[in-house]
């Protein structure tokens, strides 16, 4: 390489050199004139400098290597070519600039599309035989670009080598060029940063590119930006000036060429080497691209078994680089820090890369919404969404929704009106079970995609399932139905409308409301079934609707349809069993439940039904073992989960589900009386808050649901013990339940039942009164209270309670029977007869457990 600071260290030359490295070509031309006049024997050097300056300033203004520009480039560069050719002569050799001249000439040829000539120039410059040594900044750039151009020329060379061997040879030469170009390019940019960092007197020639802070006292009067991190757009100007399209292309091209040649591992290694080089101002966006691309390669082309972790072997990487300690001079500096995180496997590397890429991409996003920034905004947005998409792909699989959540939350700042981001955010919130937030975000998503029913449906589901705001959910479902124009999923929207009406009917306390909702629900569900005849869920809900309307025949036929469509569906089997009990076929029902438990051994609801059936069939001993089994299942399912929960609470503020989501979903479908009794659970919640303020009571850790389940099991066990005449055991069970949560109305009710069993009527009455106070809609407690009143000789109060109960649940024969008894005591025999008749009529179609005890299901 030419050594330009050889002996002539005049002021002008030093100035020229600094201008060259900073790319101030106009100034170089001016200075060259001075040089020429100063010392005429520098003619050759002057020619070279002018040629260089013209070439570079032309290329700065015009994009390189687009087919259409070749002609224009030839004209525009004719003069530069002349000057460079002048510098080639013997005097040029002597002055030591011939090499540089050849290299620049090659660049010129490349810009004109003359690839062959360009390659010839490289041969003349003997590019392959250069020895590594320290270089000036400008020379470093020329050399890096030269390798890049050579690589690009080889790639675009018109004639293809004939023999396989030749082709392989050419490929390897090309790869070698790109690799060197990328190493030298990075080194150049690093050196540039050092020089410009120390050189504080670098003038602010163009507005917006100034770096110096202490420039002047009167800064406030000027209007430039002082930036600590580089603002993206003014940075791009600088980047392009420092790096240039040729280098940038080569840097990105190197690994791609390797992949094309089938050397995936080497390509990955190349990416790693480039990313391992210390970053510079100019490489910010390049690093973003590289990090994203490496993550893409790892996600798209490398499966777990062929992955090799980075930097495990020192010699790893390209075989083409060859040995030699001297070579180190031309390698970029690497990150060195103590206790560096080095990925050990694919997941670690991918997620690390994406986290870095995200940080880089987010920084450059544009917040200005005015139209002139549209292009810049979209470009930055594209970059950042690409990272988010990859992040979603890489993390969801491992249940790391929380991570994704945080990313999207940060993204909202610059994602005004970006429907993709909003939707992903809403979905991720939903997946992370932050339901109320998710609903808010989905509302925004609905606005952004007015034609898409999906966000509405999701919102509707959140309302039904988690927020227990059925009315609102129904609104969303209807909105979704309105949006169904393409008809992709009309049945789902229709079904959700039906579910909403059904839930409203269940919750309604006024008969007229209930009737109208039931009618609407039936209509909607019928339509849902017509829309999609293969949907077991629609059939299931239709069947449930008929069951709630006490039309058991219809209900049975539809549940059979549902089961034909999906044989193994626990809620369907559950409903089927209940329907059988309502048709006086309890033994068959037991058979169904037992078969179902074969397929779903850990399903607590089915076990619950089974225990009740066994109780009803006067088989309390087996029921006892069933309930004991339930307790064992509960422990298997939830103990680990709750323990994990506790751990999470102790060491982090936000937990992530480390358990694979499929395991989770099994459990979450278990809830004996789940969302269907919305009012009830809200009361319970209020009470539990009240209870937690009691000093004697400590809230159990973890989510409430599993604990509520355990209460259910204890109470069932208490029931069983009473049947086998062991009231003390029953009291123990109730005590256990009370330990978990003292204020449940169900516990109070059950305690009352024990008192009834022991014929302690006043105590029983108090318990039932408590239960009713806690939950005025608990019909069983109302009925029991009525009966107790009757026994205590208070028939008027009994009548009141039983009538309330009958209003809430007109299909329960026991209530009508008790009411009949009360009327009889009061001497109102006509009413009494009516009540008994109703009871008789209802009795055959009464299921062992209410149909509403099946939790809502969406799968």
């Amino acid at each position: 390489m030419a050594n330009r600071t050889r002996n002539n260290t005049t002021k002008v030359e030093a100035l020229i050199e600094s201008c060259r490295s900073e790319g101030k070509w106009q100034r170089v031309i001016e200075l060259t004139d001075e040089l020429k006049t100063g010392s005429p024997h520098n003619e050759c050097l002057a020619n070279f400098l002018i040629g260089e300056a013209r070439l570079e300033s032309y290329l700065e203004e015009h994009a390189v290597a687009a087919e259409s520009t070749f002609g224009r480039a030839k004209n525009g560069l004719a003069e530069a070519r002349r000057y460079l050719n002048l510098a080639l002569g013997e005097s040029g050799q002597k002055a030591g600039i011939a090499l540089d001249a050849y290299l620049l000439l090659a660049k010129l040829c490349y810009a004109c599309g003359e690839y062959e000539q360009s390659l010839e120039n490289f041969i003349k410059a003997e590019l392959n035989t250069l020895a590594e040594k320290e270089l000036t900044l400008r020379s470093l750039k020329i050399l890096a670009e030269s390798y890049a151009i050579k690589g690009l020329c080889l790639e675009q060379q018109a004639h293809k080598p004939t023999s396989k061997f030749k082709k392989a040879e050419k490929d390897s030469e090309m790869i070698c060029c790109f690799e060197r170009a990328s190493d030298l390019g990075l080194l150049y940019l690093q050196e540039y940063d050092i020089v410009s960092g120390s050189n504080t007197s670098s003038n602010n020639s163009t507005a917006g590119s100034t770096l110096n802070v202490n420039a002047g006292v009167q800064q406030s009067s000027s209007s430039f930006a002082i930036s600590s991190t580089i603002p993206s757009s003014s940075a791009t100007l600088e980047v392009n000036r420092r790096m240039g399209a040729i280098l940038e292309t080569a840097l990105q091209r190197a690994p791609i060429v390797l992949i094309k040649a089938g050397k995936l591992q080497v390509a990955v290694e190349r990416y790693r080497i480039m990313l391992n080089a210390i970053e510079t101002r100019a490489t910010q966006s390049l690093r973003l691209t590289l990090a994203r691309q490496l993550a893409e390669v790892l996600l798209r082309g490398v499966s777990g078994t062929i992955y090799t972790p980075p930097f495990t072997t020192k010699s790893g990487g390209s075989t083409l680089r060859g040995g030699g300690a001297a070579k180190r001079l031309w390698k970029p500096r690497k990150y060195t820090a103590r206790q560096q995180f080095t990925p050990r496997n694919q997941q670690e590397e991918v997620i690390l890369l994406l986290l870095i890429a995200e940080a880089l991409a987010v920084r450059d996003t544009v917040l200005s919404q005015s139209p002139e920034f549209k292009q810049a905004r979209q470009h930055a947005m594209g970059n950042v969404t690409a990272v988010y998409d990859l992040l979603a792909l890489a993390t969801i699989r491992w249940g790391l929704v929380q991570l994704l959540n945080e990313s999207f939350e940060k993204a909202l700042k610059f994602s005004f009106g970006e429907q993709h981001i909003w939707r992903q955010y809403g979905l991720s919130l939903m997946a992370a079970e932050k339901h109320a937030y998710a609903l808010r975000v989905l509302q925004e998503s609905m606005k952004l995609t007015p034609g898409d029913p999906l966000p509405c449906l999701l919102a509707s589901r959140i309302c039904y399932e988690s927020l227990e705001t059925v009315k609102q959910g129904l609104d969303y479902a209807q909105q979704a139905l309105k949006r169904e124009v393409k008809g992709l999923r009309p049945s789902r929207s229709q079904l959700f409308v039906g579910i909403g009406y059904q839930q409203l009917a269940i919750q309604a306390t006024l008969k007229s409301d209930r009737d109208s909702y039931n009618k609407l629900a039936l209509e909607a569900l019928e339509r849902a079934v017509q829309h999609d005849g293969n949907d077991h869920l629609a059939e299931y809900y239709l069947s449930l609707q008929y069951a709630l309307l006490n039309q058991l025949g219809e209900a049975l036929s539809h549940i059979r349809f549902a089961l034909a469509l999906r044989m193994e569906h626990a809620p369907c089997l559950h409903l089927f069993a209940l329907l059988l009990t309502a048709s006086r076929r309890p033994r068959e029902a037991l058979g169904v439940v037992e078969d179902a438990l074969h397929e779903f051994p850990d399903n607590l609801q089915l076990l619950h039904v089974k225990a009740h059936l066994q109780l009803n069939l006067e088989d309390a001993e087996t029921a006892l073992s069933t309930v004991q089994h339930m307790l064992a299942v509960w422990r298997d399912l939830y103990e680990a989960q709750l323990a994990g929960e506790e751990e999470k609470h102790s060491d982090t503020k936000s937990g992530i589900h480390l358990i694979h989501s499929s395991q989770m979903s099994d459990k979450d479908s278990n809830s004996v009386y789940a969302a269907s009794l919305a009012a009830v659970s809200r009361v319970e919640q209020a009470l539990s808050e009240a209870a937690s303020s009691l000093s004697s009571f400590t809230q159990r850790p973890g989510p409430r649901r599993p604990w509520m389940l355990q209460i259910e099991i204890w109470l069932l066990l208490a029931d069983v013990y009473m049947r086998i005449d062991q009231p003390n055991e029953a009291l123990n069970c109730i005590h256990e339940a009370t330990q978990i949560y003292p204020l449940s109305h169900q516990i109070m009710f059950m305690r009352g039942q024990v008192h009834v069993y022991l014929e302690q009527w006043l105590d029983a009455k108090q318990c039932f009164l408590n239960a009713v106070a806690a939950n005025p809609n608990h019909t069983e407690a109302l009925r029991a209270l009525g009966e107790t009143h009757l026994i205590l000789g208070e028939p008027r109060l009994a009548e009141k309670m039983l009538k309330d109960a009958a209003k809430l649940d007109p299909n329960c024969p026991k209530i009508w029977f008790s009411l009949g008894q009360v009327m009889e005591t009061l001497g109102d025999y006509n009413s009494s007869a009516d009540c008994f008749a109703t009871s008789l009529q209802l009795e055959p179609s009464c299921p062992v457990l209410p149909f509403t005890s099946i939790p809502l299901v969406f799968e």
Partner: protein
Amino acid sequence: MAELVKDWLTDYQRARRQPADAEAFVVEHETDPEIAEAIFTIFSERQRNEDLVHDICQQLLAFYRAPEVTLHKFPLQFLPVLIYTYLHAVSAGDKKASRGVETLLICIYNGEVSTDDGGQKVVAFRMPILAQASVYHELKNLPMTDLRRWEENCNREVKWGPHLRIESINAQNRMRIMTALLFCYNQQVSLTQKSSLLYLCRVASQLVNQGFTTKSGHGHRMSYGSDPTTGTTFPKPSAPRIPLSASFLIELVHAIYYAMFNGFGTVAIQTLEDIHNRASYEMFTELIIVTNAVRNSLHANPSGQPNDGPMGLSVALTPATTTVTTSVSKSMITNASFRTKKLPDDIPIQAQDLTIPQAPQQLASVTEETEPGAKESPSAKESSSGGTRTSIIRPSMEGIKAQAHKALGFKKSKDKEKEKEKDKEPPKPPQRKFDKHTQRNSLLQLQSDSGLDYDKSPLSVSKSKTYDAVAEPQSTDLLPMQTLSLINENGSNSFSIDSDLNDGIATLPVAVSLNSNTTSITSTDMLTKSFESSVELTPLGHSNSNGAKLTEHGLD
């Protein structure tokens, strides 16, 4: 095809009897790509070849148990097909016919979830965090918020497994087992023959689409309202839908994603669409996130199309600067320009920076203020201009609050100042001009008072609003202390106290000239104070001066 497979079956039977032949068989098998092809074909026509399917399953099982690695890995490439065959049979209620496949799947599952020495296999990785320097990044060049992110997960392990070995498959564990199997398939997918990816895509489409064709399903609906006792015979839908779980489909998407970028772009994209439709139908949120992500990355995105290059990679150059002129780019607000951009003095930001037509509204509020004697007029003006800004820049509330916190100290004195002014001089016609510069004036106060009255906190609501508005274009999600440290970290380009003071001096004359004499005295007073406070409090009071500095940017 059948012939080929039969030969293959008998060959292996023979080879097993004679160990000498076994090796030859293994070698031959490894080099023969046709046999896998043939097996795939048999599976896709399994109705016609039920016996053969059974035999194949047995042989694959024997392979899986074989000591030779190539034989051992061979059955894994059929996992998707086997899973489909099995799930299809189960959903059609034909479990007996799928016994062979089921056994094979159980064996592979038990094999894959165990380590070689019989323990339970766990695939685990450490959760990387940015707060720890890595081979790919250093801490100093990333913003603090990113570094702190996910910090609590330092060295947290994310795991797959351990999975219990199973004896039988039932409805409860079925999808979990299939998911685990597919996970294992994904781990090995780059070792399988490329052609098997095509079958993967086809099978995946069948899995999610079966039972969703629009024409079927209405035939047996004729029996509506019929008596349930007579309606005992149910014409089954020819192909019922196959129940699938979200996590299973997520694994499937990963497999499809691999296929997409390894030669089967078109088919795989179609399959992805199928999976996405199914995901939307079932409302599997996590799955929709993934399918959305992949679909979005396929159009108009730098990630590239499958056919853009190897693995969809292409050179993505920074956009040419010609599209964004320098003057425009300067006024563009990026995420990075928060807290760092010094906006020009004396030019109303709304006019120069943001061309959204908010100007009329602002003018209206200005005319309102010209009513003499209105005590709150300056704050009203400021808050209203703040309002317009809020609508344009959309700052995060947290940032504002943080700034407001910091601002607590000087509100009161500012109020007093205003009142004093009001008392001393009757409202003057050039109120408008005055108002325009009260902001600047207040800044000087900020600089001085923040050092002195920092403890005094009471402030009027309207005033705090004012400050919010002023503070908002700066860092949004940083706490005050973070802002400070960041600015320090950024090294040479950070604002020094010197420049703060310089600015103060530079702006002072403007303020003085526009205010009455009395205020000008206080201003100079304050200037000296500001010198004192800044100089004295250099280590401690840095945040104050920075805070004031930040405000100034917002103002101008």
